[in-house]
């Protein structure tokens, strides 16, 4: 297993190098001139030429790539063209906002998905099972940006229950410690703020959670159905032991594998979905940071943003893969 872990980590290096190449290639293939972006609508030709030179954009590509990797190795993500701020510092609050949103979404997805899956399996072919599975199917097919808009329409516009956008009540701002506001407010004992932050996160996290929730519910149900065929469980059921006892105490660990798989597979979807969700809900996260950067051709930010997201994604997958082996050593790895 140690060998597998080592091999798995080693195999990351070519991927990481490849990623920097891809990101670098993307940046250079995107048409547009950063100099024009810096100078804005009132730019003159001479000014643009001058700035292009200052940015080193007139150098050959391999030198630019080398410079880029070199600064990456020094932990330097570069400087935003738009704000002139160091990306290392700028990116953190955005990343934290996205982490908070995706973790909240994942928690909703896991808690509801696993439970719905278990209940469906236990009462297999009941109305609950059918309803839950139809809902799950609809959930998987949901365009989440549309769901987000519909949520806003229903809960903010028609019913007025929840705030439409943002992370906090700006009149009563959270003072950031970790930038995960739910945690920050608790650390400071500001329960009033915790409440408003919670209100803000409900709709976007729910929209983001929909698809993984549906998938987890279906996978858990399938896994549980398998488990329930085992003699051990059948005996327990025959003895009249309740669902709580059988499932939650003795076979829940079987749900871990499907959930893990989904977390691994969905991490990318969540991070990608964050771009849409964050745009709709005005969530100041990395997805929107990146989307704005693309819109403004803020090349260093596009570069670093994509790289950071991809790196997180790779990392999550690594952890998931390692956890598999840890939890279920019977799985045979051929790849």
């Amino acid at each position, binding site marked *: 297993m140690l060998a597998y872990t080592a091999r798995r980590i080693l195999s990351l290096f*070519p991927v990481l190098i490849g990623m920097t190449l891809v990101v670098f290639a993307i940046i250079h293939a995107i048409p547009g001139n950063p100099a024009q972006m810096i100078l804005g609508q009132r730019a003159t030709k001479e000014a643009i030429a001058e700035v292009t030179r200052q940015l080193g954009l007139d150098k050959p590509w391999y030198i630019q790539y080398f410079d880029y990797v070199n600064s990456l190795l020094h932990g330097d993500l570069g400087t935003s063209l738009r704000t002139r701020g160091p990306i290392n510092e700028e990116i953190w609050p955005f990343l934290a906002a996205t982490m908070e949103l995706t973790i909240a979404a994942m928690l909703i997805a896991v808690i509801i998905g696993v439970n719905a899956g278990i209940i469906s399996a236990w009462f297999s072919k009941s109305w609950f099972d059918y309803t839950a599975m139809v809902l799950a199917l609809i959930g998987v*097919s*949901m365009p989440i940006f*549309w769901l987000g808009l519909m949520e806003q329409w229903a809960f903010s516009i028609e019913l007025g229950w929840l705030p439409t956008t943002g992370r906090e009540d700006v009149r009563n701002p959270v003072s950031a410690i970790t930038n995960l506001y739910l945690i920050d407010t608790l650390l400071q004992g500001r329960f009033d703020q915790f409440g408003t932050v919670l209100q803000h996160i409900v709709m976007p996290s729910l929209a983001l959670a929909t698809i993984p929730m549906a998938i987890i519910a279906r996978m858990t149900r399938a896994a549980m159905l398998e488990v329930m065929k085992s003699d051990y469980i059948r005996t327990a059921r025959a003895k009249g032991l309740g669902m709580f006892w059988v499932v939650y105490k003795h076979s829940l660990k079987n749900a871990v594998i499907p959930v893990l798989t989904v977390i691994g597979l969905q991490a990318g*979807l969540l991070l990608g979905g964050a771009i849409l969700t964050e745009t709709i809900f005005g969530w100041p996260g990395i997805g929107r940071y990146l989307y704005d950067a*693309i819109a403004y051709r803020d090349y260093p930010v596009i570069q670093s943003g994509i790289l950071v997201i991809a790196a997180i994604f790779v990392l999550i997958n690594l952890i998931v893969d390692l956890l598999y082996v840890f939890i279920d050593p019977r799985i045979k790895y051929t790849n």
Partner: protein
Amino acid sequence: MAELVKNPAEMTAPPLDENSVSPWREAWKSFYKNRMALAGLVIVVIFILLALIAPVLAPYSFKEQVLTERMQAPSGKHWFGTDDFGRDIFSRVIYGARISLWVGFFSVLGSVIVGTMLGIIAGYYGRWVDGFISRIFDIMLAFPSILLAIAVVAILGPSLRNALIAIAVVNIPNFGRLVRSKVLSVKQEEYIMAARAIGMKDSRILLRHILPNSISPVIVQATLAIATAIIEAAALGFLGMGAQAPTPEWGKMLSDSKNYLVQAPWTLFFPGIAIMLTVLGFNLMGDGLRDVLDPKMKQ
């Protein structure tokens, strides 16, 4: 990634039989029994029909603007209401089916062709070729797909065709990996070894023995991929990176109307429902096909 030990009974089954008529009829029978899958098929067929007869069915042109009849609520005259150009939303949603199905089908076709080719090459030739192609797949899969699609569109410029290309590109590794693993497992079978031993040409082995074996999982995967592709195309359209005006693409329609959430919410209901239904149809169908064609993949 994890491959369970194979069923030994299957190893000896000669692959050619799988291709003959009766198993397909068997498959159709069990597909027919699967009510969910059938529902999916019905939905998909309805949307295909809508797309085909759109010009006959649509009461209005999808692009004719009547600026005096903007944002009218659903009524007998305009079943789904009108949008901010006074265009009939019902007609636009119907025409939209053409676009979404077209993008869904052809982008997936593109990924299937390229992905299968790369997968076969990687799986069959192994060694550094495999290493190289697999690393490329790893790298591509290291990016969230919508992000990669956005990047591709940013390079090519926003248009429906480029969105289609972008979606096709990001889905290639899924098919590549699938086919590669299939090839790897088939390659070890005795009859392939035998064929090689008697000097059969690579291309012939690939075409006659290996490719047919990979077809059913690819069909399943492709059906599900169409669902994803439709959502991705809509997402790109929504971000302004897909279809351009006046194309009645559903995601683009949502994006155009999102400013009217308060005044004219119906401009947002119907395109969204259309996306959801089509995607649902393909998902149901894909699930059903999987149960039938590729029971091993069943969860």
